[in-house]
């Protein structure tokens, strides 16, 4: 099945991924899969949002392997999944045909602005404001120099 990683690369390699339900308890998952190389979280539908919170909790609990979102997810969820801690997304062949890689890349590109701090490389709006305030302060200090 097609896999897209967070850099937007298409991966078609077959691998051994351990999968868990999106309602799994963190303690159980960590007891069993703490050292898994890749852990897949199943999204039964694209609008079942439990996987987002589960990923946040797994990252917090110290899971260091790759996290893969598996299910009927759509390009418009790409950025949010990465923001919550996923590394890659696995979708069906049917869906990849209907929503090819170019749509995933475009959807990610279009949502570059975010109020939240998160795992992605994006700077949040709150951070940008802080930087601007700090820069202005610096500028004012420089202006005050003789």
């Amino acid at each position, binding site marked *: 099945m097609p896999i897209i990683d967070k850099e937007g690369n298409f991966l078609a390699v077959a691998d051994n991924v351990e999968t868990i339900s999106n309602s799994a308890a963190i303690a159980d998952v960590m007891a069993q899969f703490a050292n898994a190389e890749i852990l897949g979280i199943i999204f039964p539908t694209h609008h079942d949002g439990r996987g987002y919170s589960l990923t946040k909790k797994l990252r917090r609990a110290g899971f260091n392997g790759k996290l893969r979102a598996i299910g009927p997810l759509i390009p418009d969820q790409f950025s*949010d999944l990465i923001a919550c801690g996923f590394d890659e997304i696995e979708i069906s062949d049917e869906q990849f045909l209907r929503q090819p890689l170019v749509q995933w890349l475009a*959807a990610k590109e279009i949502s570059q*602005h975010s109020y939240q701090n998160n795992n992605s490389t994006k700077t949040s709006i709150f951070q940008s404001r802080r930087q601007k305030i700090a820069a202005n302060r610096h500028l004012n200090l420089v202006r005050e120099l003789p």
Partner: protein
Amino acid sequence: MYRYDEFDAAFVASRNAQFANQVARRLDGSLSEDEFRPIRLRNGVYLQLHAYMLRIAIPYGTLSAKQMRVLAQIGAKYDKGYGHFTTRQNIQFNWIKLIDVPQILAELAEVSMHCIQTSGNCIRNVTADHFAGIAKDEIADPRPIAELIRQWSTEHPEFLYLPRKFKIAVTGASADRAVIRAHDIGIQIIDDVKRGIGFRIYAGGGLGRTPVIGKIIKEFVTHEKLLGYLEAVLRTYNSEGRRDNKYKARIKILVNETGLEEFIKQVEAEYAISDTSSVDVDADEIARINAYFALPKLLGRSETKYDAALNDSAFADFAKYNTIPHKIDGYVATTISLKPIGGIPGDATSTQMLAIADLADKYSSGEIRITHHQNIVFPHVAKDDLPELCAALGAMGLATANVGLISDIIACPGLDYCALATARSIPIAQEISKRFESSQKQAEIGNISINISGCINACAHHHIGNIGILGLEKSGRENYQITIGGDATLDMALGERLGPGIDAEDVPDTIERIINRYLHLREEGEEFIDTYRRLGIEHFRVAFANQGQILSEDL
């Protein structure tokens, strides 16, 4: 008022580009209807009975004259020349074409407006006291915190696919005018003797088919830590909330099924291990947002014209019912009732909206509020300008002096528009308001709220109306259940059913009999709710059941 900085503006612009792209992908088949639906809803676009409906966010009910003009233009250009203000302080247009939506969003963005999260299973547009920043009983202005929550909750990547919709309301005054205990989360600003200003958090409130009154889950959170705490509540709900049945998916069901104590324990456990540093708000950001909500410069004014005008009884009524004192002497907050006798509650024509915008510029420092009662507020009116303002409003059919009285009815769009409705609400509201047209009669009855919902989803909050009317469908006929005793304040109470459902044409008579019964029973100085509380429902049931035509085969 909050104004977008370059970051807010860039965010909304990119969201609009994204939605235009999503619409295009829906049209070319890349997105299925099932995939597109949550996206469409999250951008405020509903598919209603006759057309698409677009719901535009008016965050915490505050907007400028300039923004109101754009709403008027949208009504004229893309709808049938009017709009409908909702019980969550938003506006919706009921006759929109999907193809026009991206252009409408672009026009809204020009004036810092959007439709983001006005619908869908996400954190909805935040509401607050419509007298925020004005009311004398205020501890602190709730708008800065509501604005902070708006920004934090906007496109929050973790909380876009919640089990169900999630509504947050904030009040900063001792009297709750934001109905916080009927919300998924209600936030009350408090001034703690030891800890200073902070927030008390209620959760699990909500009306709908299972009405539940929100309960306190946290006695005190600081400004700095509020967002981190809210994330812990949302994460608990997102993980544990039911997804097997949409009617049992709201947080109120989770709180009830888990048990309040256990729910609080779960949230606290989540909060304890959360790294909130990424959402803790520093003093700079708090100060930045607070600065936007400073009062406009209000000059000292004489009150001679105001005093003289009080000799006119129509003006005196308007001043009595439609204004409240302002923090600044010589000023009042003035409510413009969108409940003319026989009118559609909450509707305003584009012409009226334009007039309101001009009058707000002239008499209210360009600022306007929308109330959850579906009325409009001019927050800063000099008392001496009030006679002129009242006359100008009167010319537009906007000077009905009935705020808080029996004809100030809250009603949902009902079966005339809504795809979920089981009965009409608007005609019922119109008939009741005509029945009590006399201003003398309304004054005699005093303060009372009537709320009419056209289905059990309870958009008009019928459970917490002093008189609640719920329209259902029974054997192919519209059937109305009447409750009394509901209360929307911090002492929130759910109304009790008076008896079996009745036909539409019997509703005005029945309401009149309930009112007559109250007038007969009440003691000096009592409002309807006081009499009900003193005597209980049985005294009113007598009036209800004695009427032959109501004693249908139901009994």
